[in-house]
């Protein structure tokens, strides 16, 4: 239900005296126009119905051009009325609206209301308000129709094997994408309206007999706390409902892929879909869950494990390499193999800066390049990436500002960093990397170790809606562990991951359930 309280407040503030509709159409029309500040895209379509026995019925349709589909207004509202009402024999009384609603209008959703604010809100969301002279009730008819982006492949989470559709900005289309995958009557979609001025739709999705009711309740509770003007993206919601806003690591996962949402729902998690953004939120989440890409499940066992191991290794390398370089070069050169030590020393001949400054400069340049690459359009962006990397790096080496080894370290770090499947998590790593570098520059390997331990401690403190962020490693849970760094083959993964504490923990049907299989429907 919409945020009536806020809307009323708004109405009171703007000194709307009339909270209910009047009986005369022209008064209502004028009222609505006033309330909507004579917006130029407000369409008021007056009509006169000719009823048998020389009666006339005046009415008006009010809608916003662009939000309501003009075609639908004509086809589903005006035409049926004009057509059907020609033969309307009954006396003109309150029943007429009921007749209209039930027998005439062919549009999908029709509601009756006598409240001004309901009417206004319905007009704002794209419905058409049908006013009949002599009645102080309006019919609001759902004829929403607007333009939207077609379904394309996901921009941020590409896979090689697997479905290529991604969410778009329209909430009901997104829900459709999920419903197509989970044709289970137990899939519950609850709409929530958030945002005082935005009146944006949110949908909470969960599977009733898998997700813990406490979890769903917690989600609902937290969503009530969202108190913003407008929700432009799920990020707004995420930052208000998350557990530890100050941590660089995200405790709510976001994704553009419907298959990932469907997989999460089946695991007992809850999805929050937000209108006007393709990014859906998934709660709860763990570090392990974010390091997984849906492709891990579509690809065969050996391939999946290979990729997973590389991914974990790469994250670790990306995290630690610059600091390790600083620690070894400045504090403990005996830990390099001799040949490497001499190479490194030789390549650093004549570099004026200490290793820490060198590393910092390179890392910051890398971040700058990365951000610039995102902002620049298409082909230029890619070229800058290459240009920046090669030429600037080379130029810096030749100018004697950085050593070639540093360039390699930074390049390795960057490339390894791109392997992390979720964009959100990669921020956590990028930020903490600087902390590690700082620590390594002060106390060498000892500082690096302490910094790693501090990060570990921080991760251990994080919980996501009650679930430890470091599940399944800590607390150690053997069944879940089989799906973390290495994924066990399908016939071993019988149970759903237990961190969500699902009600029904068997993933695959047992003999019992086979008889309940529904017939195939396309």
């Amino acid at each position, binding site marked *: 239900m919409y945020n009536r309280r806020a809307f009323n407040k708004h109405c009171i503030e703007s000194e709307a005296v009339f909270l209910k509709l009047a009986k005369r159409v022209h008064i209502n029309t004028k009222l609505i126009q006033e309330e909507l500040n004579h917006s130029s895209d407000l369409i008021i379509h007056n009509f006169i119905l000719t009823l048998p026995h020389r009666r006339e019925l005046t009415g008006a349709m009010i809608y916003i051009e662009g939000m309501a589909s003009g075609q639908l207004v004509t086809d589903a509202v005006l035409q049926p009325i004009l057509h059907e009402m020609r033969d309307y024999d009954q006396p003109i009384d309150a029943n007429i609206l009921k007749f209209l609603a039930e027998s005439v209008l062919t549009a999908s959703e029709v509601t009756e209301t006598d409240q001004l604010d309901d009417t206004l809100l319905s007009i704002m969301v794209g419905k058409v308000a049908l006013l009949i002279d002599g009645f102080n009730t309006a019919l609001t008819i759902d004829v929403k129709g607007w333009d939207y982006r077609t379904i394309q492949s996901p921009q941020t989470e590409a896979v090689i094997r697997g479905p290529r559709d991604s969410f778009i900005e329209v909430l009901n289309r997104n829900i459709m994408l999920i419903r197509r995958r989970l044709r289970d009557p137990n899939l519950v979609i609850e709409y929530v309206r958030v945002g005082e001025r935005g009146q944006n739709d949110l949908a909470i999705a969960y599977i009733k007999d898998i997700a813990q009711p406490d979890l769903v309740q917690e989600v609902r509770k937290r969503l009530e706390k969202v108190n913003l003007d407008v929700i432009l993206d799920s990020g707004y919601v995420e930052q208000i409902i998350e557990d530890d806003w100050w941590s660089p690591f995200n405790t709510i996962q976001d994704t553009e892929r419907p298959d990932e949402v469907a997989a999460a729902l089946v695991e007992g998690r809850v999805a929050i879909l937000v209108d006007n953004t393709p990014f859906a939120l998934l709660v709860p989440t763990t570090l392990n869950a974010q390091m997984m890409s849906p492709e891990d499940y579509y690809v065969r066992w050996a391939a999946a494990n290979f990729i997973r191991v590389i991914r974990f290794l790469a994250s670790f390398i990306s995290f630690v390499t610059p600091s*390790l370089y600083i620690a*070894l070069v400045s*504090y*403990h050169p*005996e*830990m*390099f*193999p*001799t040949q*490497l030590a001499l190479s490194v020393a030789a390549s650093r001949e004549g570099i004026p800066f200490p290793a820490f400054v060198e590393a910092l400069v390179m890392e910051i340049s890398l971040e700058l390049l990365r951000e610039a690459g995102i902002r620049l359009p298409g082909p230029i962006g890619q070229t800058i990436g290459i240009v920046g990397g090669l030429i600037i790096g080379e130029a810096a080496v030749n100018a004697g500002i950085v050593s070639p080894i540093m360039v390699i370290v930074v390049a390795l770090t960057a490339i390894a960093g791109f392997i992390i499947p979720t964009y959100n998590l990669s921020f956590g790593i990028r930020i903490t990397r600087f902390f590690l570098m700082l620590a390594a520059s002060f*106390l*060498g*390997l*000892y*500082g*690096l*170790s*302490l910094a*790693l*331990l*501090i990060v*570990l*401690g*921080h991760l*251990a*403190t994080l919980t996501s809606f009650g679930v*430890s962020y*470091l599940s399944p*490693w*800590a*607390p*150690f849970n053997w069944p879940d562990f089989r799906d973390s760094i290495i994924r066990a083959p399908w016939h071993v993964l019988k149970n759903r991951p237990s961190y969500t504490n699902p009600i029904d923990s068997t993933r695959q049907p047992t003999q019992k359930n086979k008889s309940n299989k529904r017939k195939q429907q396309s």
Partner: protein
Amino acid sequence: MKTRDKLLSQEVSVIIINMILGIGTVELPSRLAQEAGPDGIIAYLIAVGIVVFATLLYCWLTLRFPKQGFADYSAQLTGRVIGFILSLAFTAFYVGVCSSVLRAFTNITKYFLLQRTPLEVIMVSMLFATSILARNGLQPIARSCQIILMILLVPVFLLPFFIPIFEFGEFLPLFQTSMPNMIKATFSALFSLAGAEVLLIVGSHSDKKSRLVRQALGGVLFAGFFTGGIVILSFGSLSIEQTAKLTEPVFEMIKYVPVPILLLERVDIFYYTIWIAATYSTITIGLFAASHNLAETFKLESGKGFVIPLAAVTYYLATLPKNELEVQAFSAFMSICWTILTFGIVPVLILLSYIRKKGEPVLKRNKSKQQAKEANP
């Protein structure tokens, strides 16, 4: 950090293992070799037996009062004044343990890794890192320790590489050492295996008390095995004389093992990190135990606020010893305290709990199972 945090039963063993494995592990082979030579292994096994017995004592006491911490039941058993003093003493014990570990650790780190950095800086950084975690409560500590444990297990992969340099003959002339030396060696081994007394503080948080004994013993035995493995490896690969003369035979051993791999001729980087992690977990648990105990003594919700002051005290104590000898004297003093606690205070408390008929019977479980069986045939 609430005083009634829940702890999974498996996490109990993890905490115990992390508390035990720390600074003692690294110094042990050297001390054993020096005091008892090849018989060091025997002394060590005896020490393991003693520690197992001690753990059983702790479990007994904890299970007598399954819902209360040390502060609570010591007050119950010995009256408010003595109970208060005992609690404070326990806290002081933990602070002492932390200081001694911290100082020993700092000495070694300074020597091996950061020769010119002042001791104070090393100590403050470690205390800073541990305080952050200790303030966050039991659950995060348990989870961190879980991960640290996994990290500690990584060296196991190096085992095969020890085979070429390992000499079984090193262990040979057994039973040659005199009694006093054996006792000294056992005592040294005992302190490096000390750590299970955290059970007195955290045991009451465990969610499945029935498994407490199993978990605690599991933890102690695991730590015992691990340390024993290190001792054996050190004796075999470095020879007993070398082990005796080196201060940190474990590091030399790691530097020396012929790992015929790739990038790192010297895999000791990882081992420093692992060892720093082990000490970190020991000090964190120690700080937490001390602050938690204080919180319970003063009946507060959480011990968060005590952590930093206790850390400051730890720092001060750790800076007191002036040279190597005083550091060792400090450790020896802490081992004596530990012995008094384990074999003095704990048994006395157990006896008192029976005499004054306080606390729940420990062995009632079997009876209730029987009753349940009779009720539902």
